């Protein structure tokens, strides 16, 4: 009964609305930031593509496969091009370009490799 008789100081309607607005604003800004951070994870995708291209370059070296080719995967399309490097006899310039499904260039990798 004591508890029921206790006086509780209520907030005004204005105070409650302002508080509600403030929390909602902060929450929505927070969500926007969270979504942005998650989206900026395409860095991870870029890193993944870079490592993939590096792997293809390594395989080109070890297999001595200096032929132009296209490699298709679910998410990516990789174009491999090998041309003779200027003023040399046995040096090749390897260019690897990775595109997404919309045809947007994601990453480019260039290296000089000694051929036969």
């Amino acid at each position, binding site marked *: 009964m004591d508890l029921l008789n206790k006086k509780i100081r209520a907030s005004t309607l204005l105070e409650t609305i302002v508080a509600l607005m403030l929390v909602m604003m902060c929450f929505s800004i927070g969500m926007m930031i969270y979504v*942005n951070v998650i989206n900026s994870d395409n860095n991870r995708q870029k890193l993944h593509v870079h490592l993939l291209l590096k792997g293809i370059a390594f395989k080109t070296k070890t297999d001595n496969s200096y032929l132009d080719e296209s490699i298709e995967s679910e998410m990516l399309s990789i174009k491999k091009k090998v041309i003779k490097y200027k003023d*040399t006899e046995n*040096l090749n310039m390897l260019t690897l370009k990775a595109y997404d499904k919309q045809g947007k260039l994601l990453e480019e990798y260039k290296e000089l490799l000694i051929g036969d």
Partner: protein
Amino acid sequence: MLKASSLFYATAIALVIALISSSLILFAYFNKLRLTDYNVSERTLINSTSGLSLLLSKQNIIQLNQQKFIDLYNEGNDTVLLKRKSWGSFEVIVSKAFSARSSSNQIALIGSGMPSEKKAIYLADQDKPLSLCGKTVIKGDCYLPKSGVKRAYIEGQSFSGNQLVEGTIKESSKNLPPLNNELIEKIKSIILKQMGENDSIIDMDKQQKLNDSIINSFGNNTIYLLSKENIIFSNQVYQGNIIIISDKEIDISNNCNLQDVLVMAPVIEVEDDFEGSLQLFATDSISISKNCKLNYPSALSLIRTTKSHNNMDIFIGEGTEIFGDVFAYEENLSPQKQIKINIEKNVKITGQVYSSGIVDLKGFVYGSVTCSTFLLSTPSSVYENHLLDATIDVTKLPEKYVGINLTETEQAKKIIKWIY
């Protein structure tokens, strides 16, 4: 009485959300920064590796003892500094790629890969057959005189093997394959003390008094230690980009540490039990005493100049092991002027042996021997084109062996080792 004060709680919650949000922003920012750094350093590393590939290829862009800035793909973003420098019988290549926040520097000692046709012996045709006695073993293809190979009986020993040569025998010509001209020029430049503009010169006599040691990176300019008198190395350490030249004689004791250095004098003597990795260049004689170990990549080179004595020789004492190449060369052979490589019992050479004159072989060569004449000296007599208890086995030369391009044949350049 409980206080309602919802605005206070709302502000507190907003603050917490703000803190979480800002830490997320910071996390994303640093993550991106780290990834950008990784991409930049990765690109510089790939560029410096590409620069090395360029230097190892057959190219006319960078000449020997020259350095150049090259824009690899003509896009203005991939500039590398490439450098080729003669290092005795070998070559040092430097590739340095850089960007605003990162750089990658790779330095390698390079030589020549072995020809696809691996030959055990090339003996010039002087109308005398090669005679084998005792426990002589020859494995690999051989270029021998028209008169071929035969069994012989000397010093109470006849040939004890089943097969004279375990490989194909081909006919040799009267003259040896000529020594690579570029190699001769490289060695002459050391003999003539041709230095680079920025190379340092230290008086070896003063250096000897200090009894000091020097370690010099191949990224720096070369240090020349010069003396007009005899040099005796004892309890000293010399490593890296150092050339030591005496006008008289150099003695190397077994308590000093010599790695990757070039040593040049008319006469060079190495004491018993020495161990190191070095290139020796002499114009009169090289003498390696017993039980020494010259690690890969070492080289012994004897080359005639106008000041050389009539009889020049390389002597390799019993029990010595050499991982590298040994060569003695003179342009115009004559009976008055002799050049000889003397390989004693239990000597093991893994590499190539080339003499434009004589080879006296009593030990083991795991590689190839090219010479005009084999000469066997015993206490009782001297035999021409005879081998007694000697081994020449090219099949034991490691598949990936990289050495000196001794003859004019064009061989692929390969990395011997990474240097600092």
